[in-house]
């Protein structure tokens, strides 16, 4: 468990370095988390994915796999990797303030 300062507030992070408390998240925090992942700005396409992740998490209690993202968010796998290089499901979940998707086990 680690605490880090984001936008002047001390926030808690879990063992995977994802935000611990869902209430600490807002769109400004998301922008900061994106920067840490090397994503300088969040476009509409990024937000579409991030919001989809949050919606699925609220419904199911787990962030979706890349396969589910591709199937249901309307964003193709190729674009997902362009938006969130390397691990799209993991990175998008991190920016969305959600725990690491359990599907990657």
């Amino acid at each position, binding site marked *: 468990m680690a605490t880090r300062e984001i936008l002047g507030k001390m926030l808690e992070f879990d*063992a995977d370095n994802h935000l611990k408390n869902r209430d600490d998240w807002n769109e400004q925090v998301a922008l900061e988390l994106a920067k840490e992942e090397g994503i300088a700005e969040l476009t509409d396409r990024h937000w579409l994915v991030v919001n989809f992740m949050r919606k699925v998490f609220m419904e199911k209690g787990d962030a979706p*796999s*890349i*396969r*589910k993202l591709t*199937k*249901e968010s309307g964003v193709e*796998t*190729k674009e*997902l*990797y*362009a938006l969130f*290089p*390397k*691990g*799209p499901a*993991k990175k998008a979940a991190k920016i969305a303030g959600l725990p690491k998707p*359990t*599907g*990657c*086990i």
Partner: protein
Amino acid sequence: MKKLLILGGGTAGTIIANKLHEALDAGKWQITIVDRSETHYYQPGFLFIPFGIYTSKDVMKPKRDFYPRGIEVVIAEIDKIEPNENRVLLKNNQVLSYDYLIVATGTNIHPEETEGLIDENWLKDKFDFYTLEGSCALANFFKSWEGGRLVVNIVEMPIKCPVAPLEFLFLADSYFTEMGMRDKVDIHFVTPLPGAFTKPIASGIFGDVLEKKNIRLTTEFGIARVDNEKKAIVSWEEEEIPYDVLVTIPTNKGDSAIERSGMGNEFNYLATDKDTLRSIDYPNIFVIGDTTDLTSSKAGSVAHFEAEILYENFLNAVEGRPMRAKFDGHANCFIESGFGKGLLIDFNFDVEPLPGKFPLPGIGPFSLLQETKMNHYGKVMFRWVYWNLLLKGLELPIESNMTMAGKRY
């Protein structure tokens, strides 16, 4: 007569059929099991075939030898479940009705999901080892191979037996060393995960073992396609990794019957209650083995632990009593590491694999997350345990829920 219908007579279906047949009154219950195949495959043995340690006859036995006497066995392809009608349609137009249903149809590989994997060179320079056909073809190929780039690639997670790719790498290192040609083989592990394994501590330890064995590791590689002209795998971000022989662990998905029934998730896995193992959507359906959507490993040992929980809950549910047994995601896997040694991991939903001794704290005889000869004997013994104890639903000397005793943390 009440009807219990079990779909799939593989590891999980066979175990639960044996356990429930023992417990349910034969005068009141009719048990039926459906499977398309008459042969039981010992899938953990597929791993050893490419290296000439086992042959196909070591991993096949008639399924009937393991089903309990007195149950009805139907050999047919399942078309779909109609959960609202409490019935199952078979491809031969037979209709089976049920009072209770247990789904145990497992998971399988789907190389056709990756562009370029299946072409005229499939099983010639691109192989899997998750099927008998794939592992036998690879055994033949290795016999006359003179060396080059061996790339082992996981297409996407989750896969059954997530340690099998690592074991394959360790055994390949050992095999080519013993053949006197290790210096001619470049072994390269390419994975979509951020490390050698999913769980942090084990991932670090396995990463070190790979390095020690001179096996290259590329992480966070999401394969988009195979470029068959160049003989390279290409990622969604257009990175290319060339190979002379590609060993792929393709996308794993539950059976298409689940999809036809409109009951699965994006991988055709069934929504399962993680404590009770009952279907989330239908109170008279239970789910066991690889076809659940749980985050526990998809492994035979897990099917065994699940069977103990499902057994208790089933017997209570049919009597209208509350279901008290809770599954904790327990998995216990021997990992062959080559040169007559092995590793062992023991973990559950909440606790990642940790070092220590198993099953007796401080004594073992097995060592967790450490390469020992004893762990290798454990793996060798597992085949005997599988055919003689596990499938028959008999007690194993391991608790169904994990224990922290003997673990260092």
